[in-house]
Structure formats: C-alpha cells, structure tokens
C-alpha cells in the first residue's frame, strides 16, 4: 500500500519518504527530534503558567478572606462541566493520535472533529461565564463594581439558612478577579490556539498527509492539547472549589 507513496523522486535527484526533512536521516530520527522539541516547549509552558500560579498562591496565602468571599461569584457547575468537556477532548485527541498511528484516516478525522467540538464547547461556556461577570460588574481593578443583583445571586442563592446574609466584603476583592481573568484568559487563549492547530491538522488529514510512518504532527499537537487540559485540571479546584 505504501509502495506508490513510498518514495517521491523529485528535483533533488534522490528519493526519500515524503515529509522527511533533509536534515534528518530517518523518519524515526525526525520523530524523536520533534518529540524532544515539543516536550521542551511543554516544559516552558509549565514555567510560563507557573508565574500566574505563583501570583495566585501569594495572594491567597496572604488574603484568604478575599478568595473565600469572591468564590461565591463563581459557578462550580460550569467549572465542573468545563472540566469534563476538556477531559473528554483529551480522550478524543489521544484516540486520534492512535488512529493516525495505525493509519485509520476516517477515524482520525472523526476524533479531530470531536476534539474541536469540545474546544468550542469549552469556549462557549467560558463566554457564558465571562458575560455573566461583565453584566454583574465583576471585573478586575477599577472594573470591580458588583451590582446588587450579583451579590444577591452569589450569597443567598441556594442557601437555606435563615442567617444567610452576605458577609462583610473584605477590601481588594478586585484582586481575586485580576487573578481569575489572567489565569482563565491566558488559558482560554491557549485553547483558541489549540483549536486553530486542530483545524490545520484536520486539513492535513483530509489531504491524506498522515500515515503510520508519518503521524508526528498529530502526536505533537496532541501533546499541546493535553497540556491545555492539564492546566485546567489545576485551575478548576483552585478557582472553583474554594469554600
């Protein structure tokens, strides 16, 4: 099956497998090098996000009352649904890599579509959350001007206690929202970039680029997508499960 696609004699005068760059000897070497490069990038991404996580840690350690108060403005349900959406997208992505590895083009395309769908689902829920924050005046810095409705919704919603008046607002709750929007915003940008990369993979998959000999792009973009999921795995309890 691969004989016709095996070598492509071209203007170079020699033939080599398609998608093998000239500075590599074999497809396997190219794959290993690409994998190392992707993991180096992932190591950097972790350090990149660690700056924001450090800001979170310092603020929360110094002012836990701000985080406890502000956590009432976040909806745990949406956060949990988003977590499940991303976890499922990781499954479809890993499954897609497997499909590419065994040369199953149709299933790879299906898996890529499902992953993209999950990505859009995540962003849609993010949009709903952000819109709610905007309408309730729950933004960062000077933008933190919570409406009466926001406070009512956050503190009396779902509580059956008779003494459930909302607690005294500590100062600088705006700091929580600065941290919240930076963390989720940066993560959201990464999801959008991931969706773009997945569309590129989809285009290439339709074109028939991938085979058991050459599936590296699927593998590496899969790694990126898993990193995006990993970050959310930590963001969810830190932002949504403060009680």
């Amino acid at each position, binding site marked *: 099956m691969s004989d016709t696609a095996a070598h492509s004699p071209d203007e170079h005068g020699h033939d080599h497998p398609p998608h093998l760059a000239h500075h590599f000897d074999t497809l396997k070497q190219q794959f290993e090098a690409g994998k190392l490069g992707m993991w180096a990038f992932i190591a950097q991404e972790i350090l990149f996000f660690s700056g924001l996580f450090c800001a979170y*840690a310092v603020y929360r350690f110094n002012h836990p009352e701000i985080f406890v108060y502000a956590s009432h403005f976040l909806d745990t349900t949406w956060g949990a649904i988003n977590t499940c959406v991303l976890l*499922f997208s990781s499954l479809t992505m890993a499954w897609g890599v497997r499909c590419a590895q065994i040369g199953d083009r149709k299933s790879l395309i299906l898996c890529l579509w499902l992953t993209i769908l999950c990505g859009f689902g995540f962003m849609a829920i993010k949009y709903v959350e952000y819109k709610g924050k905007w309408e309730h005046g729950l933004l960062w810095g000077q933008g933190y001007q919570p409406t009466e409705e926001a406070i009512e919704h956050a503190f009396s919603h779902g509580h059956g206690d008779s003494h459930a008046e909302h607690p005294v607002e500590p100062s600088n709750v705006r700091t929580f929202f600065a941290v919240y929007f930076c963390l989720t915003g940066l993560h959201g940008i990464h999801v959008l970039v991931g969706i773009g990369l997945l569309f590129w993979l989809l285009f290439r998959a339709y074109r028939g680029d991938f085979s058991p000999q050459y599936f590296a792009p699927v593998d590496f973009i899969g790694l990126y997508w898993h990193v995006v999921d990993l970050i959310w795995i930590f963001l969810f309890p830190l932002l949504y499960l403060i*009680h």
Partner: protein
Amino acid sequence: MSSITDPTPLHATVTEPQTGYGHEHDPGDDSPVGDAHHSPYGMGHISSWQTLVKVWVALMLLTILTVMATWVNLGTLNIWIAMGIAFVKATLVVLYFMHMRHNKPFLAYLFTFSLAFVAFFLGMVMLDSKSYQPDIERRMLDDNQQTPIKQVIPAIVPSTPAAPTKTETPPAKTGH
C-alpha cells in the same frame, strides 16, 4: 466502525527498507511487523483504545471525587486534598494520554526538571511572602478599625540634611 477498535495489522512484511525509513526494532521485539502496540517503524507506542477509555473513566471519577471533597469542611486540609487529587489526574494524563509511560526516560527527566523549578519558584516566593505576614496583619487590623493611617513622610530639605520633620507638611524653609 470496526476499524476504530480493532488493532489493524499492518503490512504482512516489511520489505527492504526504503531510504529514510530506517529499520529499527524495539529492543526485545523479534517480530518484523508491528502489532497492536508497537509501531513497525519504531516510532513509539500505540495505545489501545481500552487503555485510553479506562484512563478517561478514572479521570471523570476523580473529578467527581474532587467536587464531593468540597462538601466536607476540613479547613486548610481541603486545598491540599484538592491539589492531591489534581496531581493524580495530571499524572494519569501525562503517563497515558501523553505517552510518558512509554517515552524515553530523558523526556521524563526534562518534564520533572521543570516541575522541580516551579516548586522552587513557588516555595521561595511563599517563604519571602510569609515574612511580610506581620505587616499584612497590622494593615488588616487598621482596615477593620477603619482608622486612616497617617503617613509620616520626612520632607526632604536640601539645606539642612540633619533636620527631618515630623509633621505632615514640611516647614516652609526658604532660600538656597
């Protein structure tokens, strides 16, 4: 679709390798063809769909667990439990979805190395931040009492360097 689940056997034989394909085998693998788990071109491990689904189910259960853990109030222990569960989930994703289980060890060292530096970063900053706790507590006390803090700023008076003023407005020193 059956193809999504059955480990499609690849070519019956690997013929004389074309230039650039290489002819590597996994160590200990004496079969010339790929099977359900080994790429015939030596390019990594192929996960079975059963493994992937099992890992996903575990991740979903851990998510449910982490949400349920917030229903029990254990004070400061709660965040550590949440982080512990998150760490387990992350380990599953890295080991199985990201193939770290079957990667060359060097990649695991690289990844762990960056995690170690994150730990160092956060640890050092938290230690430093902890040393400012007394100042923060004092400020919070002041906030609660709602007394504005009068800032005593010594005025900079060019001609008399040894005369710091203790009032809020600098004395009107004229000349030079």
